């Protein structure tokens, strides 16, 4: 049976984010992220003068780029792109040189002291493979992130990207980021 090509991605509706940190803690538990490190986080932009004020929250993590610079610079090929577009690190092959941390435009990677390897968001590939949503997507009170297959024209993210305006961060790097921020 010919498998249909998949391209997993996240659409982020930042306006719904209330900075509650549920995504960050869910990720921490799911992926055993050490204290002091994060695979996802929330950017805050505060502006204005009292009483004309504005706060914007923007959840972020690995953008699972189409042409990831982290993979290009990896000397051992430990960072690789799965057929469904998820960028992963093979811990057996990672030598902890950290070139990828420098190469990532989003600072989405961290060095895991205990294992001597570099870690980052896996889009919870293990959960996806078991038919579950990524932990950050599932736990969110306001369902800021929408997970889905861009190749599936009936998916919610396909519909959102077809009908809403969105932006990508640092597209000029040529990395082809796949974290879509709705405007």
């Amino acid at each position: 049976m010919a498998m249909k090509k998949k391209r997993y991605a996240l659409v982020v509706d930042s306006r719904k984010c209330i900075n509650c940190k549920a995504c960050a803690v869910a990720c921490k538990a799911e992926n055993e992220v050490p204290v002091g490190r994060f695979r996802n986080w929330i950017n805050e932009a505060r502006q204005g003068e009292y009483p004309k004020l504005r706060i914007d929250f923007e959840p972020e993590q690995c953008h699972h780029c189409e042409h990831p610079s982290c993979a290009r610079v990896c000397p051992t090929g430990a960072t690789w792109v799965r057929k469904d577009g998820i960028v992963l690190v093979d811990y057996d092959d990672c030598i902890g040189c950290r070139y990828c941390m420098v190469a990532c435009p989003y600072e989405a990677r961290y060095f895991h002291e205990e294992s001597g390897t570099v870690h980052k968001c896996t889009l919870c590939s293990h959960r996806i493979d078991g038919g579950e949503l990524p932990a950050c997507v599932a736990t969110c009170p306001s369902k800021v992130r929408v997970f889905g297959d861009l190749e599936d024209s009936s998916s919610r993210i396909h519909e959102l990207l077809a009908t809403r305006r969105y932006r990508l961060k640092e597209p000029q790097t040529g990395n082809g980021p796949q974290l879509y921020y709705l405007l």
Partner: protein
Amino acid sequence: MGTLRMDRRLFLQAAGVTAGVAATTQVGCLKYFRKGRTVSNDDRQVPTTCELCPNKCSAIAVVEGGIVRKLNPNPENPKSRDMLCARGNAAIKQVYDPDRIKHPMIRVGARGEGKWKKATWDEAFDFAAQKLAAVKAKYGPEASLWSSTEGFQEVFFKNLGLAFGSPNLVRHPTLCLASVNLAYSATFGTVPSFDLLNSKYVIMSGANRFESIITPDTMDLIGGVMERKAKLVYLDPRFTVTAAKADEWYPIKPGTDLAFILAMLHVIIKENRHSHEFVAASTIGFDLLTEHVKQYTPEWAEQETEIPAKDIIRIAREFSDAAPRAVYYAGRRSSWYQNDFQMRRAQAILNAIVGNWDQQGGMVPNAKLPKGEFLFMPWDEPKAARVDEIEKHFPLAAKGDGVYLKLRENVLSGKPYPVKAWMVYKQDPMNAMPDQAKTLKMIEGMDFIGVIDVQMSDMAWYADVVFPESAYLERTDPVEVMAGIWPAVVYRQQVVKPIHDTKPNLEIVQGLAKRLGLSDYFDYTIEQWVEAEFKELPIPMAMEHMKKHGVWAASGQPSYGKTLNPDHRFVTKTGKIELFSERLKEAGYDPLPVYEAPTQPPGDRFRLILGRVGYFTHANQSNNVWLNEFMKENDLWINPKPAERLGIRHGSYVAVTSSVGTVRIKVRVTEEIRPDCVFMLHGFGKKAKMQSLVYNVGASDAALLETAWDKVSGNAAFHETFVKVANA
């Protein structure tokens, strides 16, 4: 794939990477995940109910190798709306916290000194029972105080206090939302829910719903506001996350919300925008209300609130146009002022006259579900009157909950009678009550203090004996029925066995009861208790269902309008919704809300205001390692204008002084607060060394807050403290 791997290996060799490095990279993921943990084949998924705050969200615990590895949201709970917040996710760290109380502890040094001896349960029970019996023998059972917050096992603790013979049970509401509850009860005879999922227009006074998470309100509101189904008008001296998300934010002058509401009433009645039909059919006292609010013009309110009169008029019009899908949201929020009850009453009245009662998108009386009760042996009612003299001072307040601050005053004065023993379950009066110095004085006066808690709270730190309760993931608890628009039943079942020498509260209560000669009243197991509750649930195969799912939701859509039939009697004196309250009048209170301007801080002082963030519950969880990461230390928010005037720099430390205390705290100079207020978050500056992340880090607001309460409900008034700020 295989050849690719071969290529990598070849690369490694070619690059001269040593075998040693290659070996360390072989450390498999699973291996380090398991390190230092019990390895077993105990892999399960167990539905249970979160206890990190009072929302009771349904969670599914993932157990791997006998360890709780993850908590996932359970989509079957209609109230938690398929989510688990940061706290819920971090509950794992409540279990595996190195700071946990791992066995019973008996104090050996001075109170609060932190010198303990490890005790067996028998020693701890014997010690406590002997002390309690001594107090009872000398002063009578009423000389014991039993304080608790809430929780599925709270019932056992309260029952022990009652069986012991004490009338002095004191619970959290008067440090929380007693004024809201009493105001809505006085008006509607019940406290309704707010149907934010379907509201078109929502006004909130300081109920910072996006940082103080209440299910399902927080999620429903964010959906409504973000999908442009609802408009949110938000009043708060501070630019909170809710303010940031609101359509309109007004940094109202603190303490003047009542003026805003009265002016809205004025506009709506003057312009004949109220629901004539509903007012005539279901309410009483509209004519008196009409007369009463004539004085409260929008122009007058502008002077009080600093909200332009034209905006008050427009908001009143928009609100009444959107009715009945419009709410002035009460929600949960601590009381602020000594006139708090009347402010909440005015909200209730405003909601009533536009006819949003029992309507989709309006206020909805809670639907309830039946639950069985375990029949235990009853005890004699305690003979003495309550030490807080609630009947005399707060005749309308909830007797079973008591009035916390008045109680402390009376205990300190020794009148009407001495109180010498203090038992505490799952509560931290040291941080929950204003004026920590006074609480410490109360502690000093006790012959005995016993605390039951999962963690070493500051209260536990000052106790004579600490009984460690098992964390919720280690316990099976009584069944909880959650009344609401979407009523549900939730069940908390043991996920893993206790990892330390801890017990569930029932067993702690039984251990004490046995030694106090009260065993007959507690002669049951949690399983028997739960079984009795299951029996009358409207659920087929209730026990099997609850064990498998952890939650049961009454199916179908919410039913609106059951109380709208003309024969319906509200549980009020007149059987109507009481805009004018004869009962309040008889009790000596204003039968209609009368505005009293709050005192404003003198020139060199600021009003200290309180609030929350979404990842801590009250003073709890700042010591949870996964949550502490988001805020390691609290700070004092101050507007740049006064900061400049006082020469205070962002990031420096200041001394904050009220009439009852001084704290040292870091400064956050921010535009996000009114220039006449300062703000600090709850839950820092802990005294207990066993809260190692927040021990002596930041400051406790309880050390600064002065004793003040709402006149009708007795609810602590948390925004009545003025402070001086100076470089430290």
